């Protein structure tokens, strides 16, 4: 089966929530799917994550003064095929947070705008399948002056991030495996306080945000109208400090999370270019993060700028 056909028809985006702080990822920056040239996939995605237990350092606990902490997001996403091998991606979520118990007020607002460049420098037949490699670079930055130093109810951490990712994919028949590794540089943030305590007193309103490394494995079934996959993600901050006993979390905490999840994407046969997506995930291990359970659902549509009525791209003709 030609992968490009699949790509063109099956593109969609999804959310993966990894932190107790809501984090939004367009799935397409983490998967091995490319938009065909001059096609623009746009869509909206709703996601919800919640946790009752969290890890205070390595100690798993609940907090009766928070109850269940939840975050909800509504994200706009778009992916444009500059060429078969080069895609541009954008996403921007609106987020809200809430604690079911205690007195703390939830937060809401537009979060961070992400821009990604996804390049597929290599695609070749290998054995009976197809191997492809991707280099992905991204930048994200806060679009509003939302408050970061209000964990666990801030809508984000307010850092500007630069991400570099290497992603490898192998597809054999309808089955595929994708692995990726990402390094995220996070710049220092400025908080409203003039001092704070980490493992020492810092008399500054600047916070050194540790960088983040993530690894991801995706395994599943991929055909022109259906993608079903299992996803395992491991996220680690490279530095940071533990929440001390019965203290509040802080943006520069050491954070670690292993999440597992599933993702299903169905492209309608009757309406070309329309796809539906749904998924869920669960945090199986962590440190200074909530043990989140996550769900998401979205609708995506491909706008074809190759000409109305022109149903097949160059790639599809291969």
């Amino acid at each position, binding site marked *: 089966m030609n992968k490009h056909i699949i790509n063109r028809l099956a593109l969609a985006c999804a959310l993966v929530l990894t932190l107790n702080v809501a984090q939004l990822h367009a799935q397409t920056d983490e998967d091995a799917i490319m938009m065909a040239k001059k096609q623009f996939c746009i869509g909206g995605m709703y996601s919800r994550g919640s946790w009752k237990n969290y890890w205070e350092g390595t100690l798993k606990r609940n907090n009766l003064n928070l109850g269940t902490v939840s975050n909800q997001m509504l994200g706009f996403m778009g992916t444009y095929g500059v060429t078969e091998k080069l895609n541009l991606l954008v996403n921007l979520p609106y987020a809200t947070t809430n604690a079911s118990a205690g007195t703390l007020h939830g937060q809401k607002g537009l979060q961070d705008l992400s821009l990604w460049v996804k390049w597929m420098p290599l695609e070749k037949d290998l054995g009976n399948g197809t191997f492809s490699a991707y280099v992905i670079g991204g930048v994200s930055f806060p679009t509003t002056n939302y408050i970061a130093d209000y964990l666990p109810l801030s809508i984000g951490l307010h850092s500007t991030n630069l991400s570099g990712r290497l992603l490898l994919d192998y597809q054999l028949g309808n089955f595929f495996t994708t692995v990726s590794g990402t390094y995220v540089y996070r710049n*220092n943030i400025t908080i409203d306080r003039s*001092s704070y305590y980490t493992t020492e*007193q810092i008399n*500054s309103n600047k916070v050194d945000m540790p960088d983040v490394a993530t690894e991801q494995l995706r395994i599943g079934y991929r055909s022109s109208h259906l993608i079903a996959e299992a996803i395992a993600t491991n996220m680690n901050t490279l530095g940071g400090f533990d929440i001390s*006993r019965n203290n509040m979390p802080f943006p520069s905490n050491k954070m670690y999370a292993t999440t597992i999840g599933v993702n299903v994407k169905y492209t309608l046969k009757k309406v070309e270019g329309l796809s539906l997506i749904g998924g869920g995930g669960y945090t199986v291990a962590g440190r200074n993060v909530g043990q989140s359970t996550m769900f998401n659902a979205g609708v995506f549509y491909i706008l074809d700028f190759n000409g109305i009525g022109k149903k097949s791209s160059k790639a599809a003709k291969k």
Partner: protein
Amino acid sequence: MMKKIFLSLTLLALTASIILVACSKKVEGVTDNIAALNPTNIDLAAGNWKTVLLTRPDTFLVAAPAATNSPAYVAELNEIKGAQRSLTYEQRAAIKYWSAGSVLRWNEILRGLVAKHNLPPYQNEDGSYPIPSSANPFNYPQFPFSNPPYAARAYAYISAAQYDALVAAWHYKGLYNRPAPYKVDSSVNALVPKTVLPSYPSEDAVLAGTMVAMMSMLFPTEIAYIQQKVTEEEYSRIWSGANVRSDIVAGEALGRQVASVFIARGKVDNVGKAVGTPAQWQQFVTNALANGKTPWYSLEAPARNPMLPFFGNVKPFLFDSATVVALRPGPPPAENSDEMKKETAQAKNYITNAPRENMRIVQFWADGVGTYTPPGHWNAIAASDFITQNYSEVRWARNMALLNMTLMDAAIVCWNTKYYYFTPRPTQVDPSIKTLTGVPNFPAYISGHASFSGAAATILGHILPAKAAEYTAMAKEASDSRMLSGIHFLIDCSTGLQVGQNVGGYAIKRAQADGAE
């Protein structure tokens, strides 16, 4: 073409990340690299300034030092010269750090200790809460829980003890008039600004000795940590050529002795009874109900015992306990009055769609769990302004003592008022009021932040009149922040600010009479 552009962009982004990764992101504190303290006036007459607890500046004898031409002194000079031949990077860093000012550095270190220990204990299985024990300070929950009243008292005791100790030190400096090592021997390098202030006993060692001795009472789990800092400071003074070893030894001993006077006071100042007992906690509720009032209750789950309900009986520094009662304000409007209904609605209004600027004000002044508390915040504000004044160490200590005695006494009057009236927080009156910062676990009337801030702004405005209006505005903002966050009524804040200012008036009286002005 397009492809090439985007390809380049991708590579650029990746390269940029790699470069940025290599860059250090370490945050620099605002005082990390300030210049060495070089006082414009050495305040040589400070040996006559009015002390807080010491009855005389020579209560503790400091023996006459060896003559500067004695073999013992020459040996001490040789110790400096030997050290100065091969100073390491770390040694130079220690010299630089401590040369910014010893009162400043110890105040910063103390703020860090307060922040570290300002953590409410986690509940027991049965929903009660363990009480930190000074007898078993390392057991969870560690002693102390340095909440705002505790912190106010810690800052006051240490600042006042350091002030008294420096007055005594200045007395002996004037009496013995031993010059600094670099004045005696020109081959000793002065790695800190030169001064004509006599070096015996060392003011740095006096402050270090006071601090480490006070730890036994205030932060017993931190003695080892502070002892490391003491050693570093004392050696930094020898390495820098500012002191010989005998200056240091005499100074530390004096500091420890003066601290003992404050520790003795601390044992009988009633703080030991400030926690109270479950029966006493219940009595507050019973009394309120008997008077037909809604008692305060804890909004935490499980309900936490009230924070230091008898701190209002602690012995103040600036006035007597009868004055505490006299300073206590009249009652707030009745809970079912139109005024309180209006203020409850106002609290709800503040937290609904709060503007970002209000959030900034709330967070800037929150000084809640895990921070150096509002008294610590006012110490930071004062310190940043005192740095620009080039005070002598003894004047630094005097001004910090005035500030912190004011803050402690404001805490006493405020806590006395809180538990006298035992009024609920806005969220207790209207549970739909979700707050923009944590709700403190004690009654509302009067606001601690307002009391602290009114008091601090008043004495600081006296010390630095050019900044008086600025301090007043800051205090108002700090006070307002508690309303804006939905955790206080207007009356709590406006009355607290006034009470704080009244307490500050006593500090001004003391300042005008202590011989330093």
